[in-house]
């Protein structure tokens, strides 16, 4: 027989998902937000994104080729995802060389020093962002005003969160423009609606589960609700939760950053604990911290807790659960 026989232990079939297909889905899910951002800020957005993606991919390739001297795995697109996520956390006006430095930190320091894909304890894109935030605070926090027509300059170049921090009452913030994205901010975080569309796509493609985003956003909303309640209630009871869920990096963080596989817990229970932690820490930083936004720090902090969660939060074992009936 001319057949070549293959043998392997069962199972002999495999789902259609691969690391590459998952990463591709994440990239696709980020496109709506990228499009809205380009509409709001112009072509600078694409420039920053392209620089970030290309530099991340090139840096990963060079490290694997010349430092690890091993197989090159840039084709699994994980470096591209890191690059785009990093770009999403930067203002569109940032100089290109800062983007490259951010990529170097993200891929070189946060990812490859730990052994590459799957081994990094912290989200590489966020490490890159936080490094830049501390190293280049001015460039990282000066956001250009949207170039889109009809932009009401109510907040004059400050992000909604910075405005609140500066004492603008939440009632004065235009929630609708926060939803559509015509506000100042990092290029990927402004378009709440587009981010939600991306999130729904990821859920539909079974790339992520609902646990982390819902836990993060739910915790933030509940937290804000109680803060508003303590503040005397009124219209703020719904305005403040809505504001915090839409503002800053909340949606970007909850849907794209916190759900990063490598740095999030393995069980659904663990994911919920992790999400609640992120939500709570973010709100604490936003309300009482020195920075207007705390999403990055919250996620990095909970990344550090992830191994602990994995160790102690185990799935429900079959047959050990108490009888339901």
């Amino acid at each position: 027989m001319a057949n070549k026989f293959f043998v392997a232990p069962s199972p002999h079939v495999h789902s259609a998902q691969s690391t590459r297909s998952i990463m591709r889905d994440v990239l696709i899910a980020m496109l709506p937000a990228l499009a809205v951002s380009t509409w709001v800020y112009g072509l600078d957005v694409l420039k920053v994104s392209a620089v970030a993606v290309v530099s991340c991919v090139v840096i990963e390739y060079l490290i694997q080729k010349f430092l690890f001297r091993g197989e090159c795995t840039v084709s699994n697109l994980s470096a591209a995802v890191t690059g785009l996520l990093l770009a999403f956390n930067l203002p569109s006006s940032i100089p290109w060389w800062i983007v490259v430095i951010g990529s170097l930190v993200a891929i070189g320091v946060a990812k490859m020093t730990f052994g590459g894909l799957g081994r990094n304890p912290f989200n590489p894109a966020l490490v890159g962002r936080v490094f830049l935030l501390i190293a280049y605070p001015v460039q990282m926090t000066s956001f250009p005003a949207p170039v889109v027509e009809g932009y009401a300059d109510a907040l004059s170049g400050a992000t909604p969160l910075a405005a609140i921090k500066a004492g603008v009452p939440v009632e004065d913030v235009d929630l609708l423009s926060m939803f559509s994205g015509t506000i100042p901010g990092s290029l990927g975080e402004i378009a709440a609606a587009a981010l939600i569309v991306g999130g729904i796509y990821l859920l539909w493609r079974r790339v992520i589960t609902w646990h982390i985003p819902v836990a993060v956003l739910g915790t933030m909303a509940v937290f804000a609700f109680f803060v508003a309640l303590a503040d005397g209630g009124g219209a703020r009871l719904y305005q403040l939760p809505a504001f915090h869920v839409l503002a800053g990096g909340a949606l970007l963080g909850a849907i794209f950053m916190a759900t990063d596989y490598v740095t999030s817990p393995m069980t659904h229970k663990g994911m919920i604990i992790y999400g609640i932690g992120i939500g709570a820490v973010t709100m604490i930083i936003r309300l009482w911290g020195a920075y207007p936004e705390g999403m990055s720090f919250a996620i990095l902090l909970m990344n550090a807790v992830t191994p602990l969660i994995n160790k102690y939060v185990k799935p429900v074992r079959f047959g050990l659960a108490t009888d339901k009936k």
Partner: protein
Amino acid sequence: MKTFPIGGVHPSDNKKWSNTKAIEVMDLPDVVNVPLGQHIGAPATAKVAKGDKVLTGQLIAEASSFMSANIHSPVSGTVTAVDMQVNGQGLRQMMITIKREGDEWLPSIDRTPQLVRECTLDSAAIIAKIKDAGVVGMGGATFPTHVKLSVPPGCKAEYLIINGVECEPYLTSDHRTMLERGDELLVGVEILKRAVGVDKAVIGVENNKPDAIEHLRRLIAEKGYGVTVEPLKVQYPQGGEKQLIAAVTGRQVPPPPGLPIHVGAVVCNVSTVVAVYEAVQKNKPLIERVVTVTGKHVQSPRNLLARMGTPISKLLEKAGGLPEGDVKVINGGPMMGRAMVNLDSPVTKGCSGITVLDGDEARRGVESPCIKCAKCVAACPMGLEPYLVSKVSRRKMWDRAEQERVTDCIECGCCQYSCPANIPLLDYIRQGKQTVMGIIRARAAAAKK
């Protein structure tokens, strides 16, 4: 609609290739090789020697212990050898080789197609008949049926669950059996109810076989069989014993050494029930079974009623031969079946199908690093953490593997199926499970001393 509580995956079922093909009787082979170990437990002891003449249905090997099963001659003819032969996995196994001469059956076997519904035997007599006929679980696990039916002291059976789930992709032998041998199946269920002394009997059928559900329900309504049909939501591995019990009763079998009987359930596969009917009502031992021969590029997929010992290559020939190029021939379905290297190996009691995967499907993807996506954790129907269990097994950390409950694994393959990094999770978990079970047994033996 009911299903099991934790995990599960949805592989494409690929049953369309053969689920409309009626069961055909396979041509009798000229030579059969009958392995002595076709079941879980001790291999049977050969009762014939070279040169002996045997009749179809004659006992040729006897159960060597309680956990063993009788084996009968699938054809009539002359024994030409009782010796080591190469099995489907290429390993050496004791087999009885019989050269067929005609097809003369033992006179005690009732070969008429007449349905015999009346059964007045008591439980012990039924179980004895099942034991004599060498009936074992035909879903693939090949657990001797008489052992399963012998309810241990202190336990009480409440449910008789008939496994018509057939959750393995591609396979359709149980589906066709339900459609074409419904009456025998339902009489068999009534016999089994007598045998284990229960009044609740449920046939669990996955919802992708609406014709079987409807057919059985109609027969039950027409003839008043004491059994219900429970449609189940399609999800792999629903046909796993523990998963099926959980789906039907909501009860979870405790981890090993927990048994289904500890939650009051006895589970039998539909083909097994038909074999029970034949054994008890027709005195017919288990010498033939329905084998699905299927695959995307198999010319004419079929459901064949083949005698045990028929070379699998003959079945493949009947289905139009293997497709060109790279192939993987699987004894069983693609989720839990075993890949074969020797196609001349015989059909055995546990062989529910021959699945042929070809081209890209025959090969596995390249392994890449674990990205901790947690898909395996979500997919595991036993609530384990496959990535972790596999990792510690790979590193031979047996203590840790035991702590992480490696022995709970049912080897369903959901973890590896869902792994986007193509990590051979189950390969290592299976290894860990075997080793840890050995350690546990050794410890128990040491404790006894």
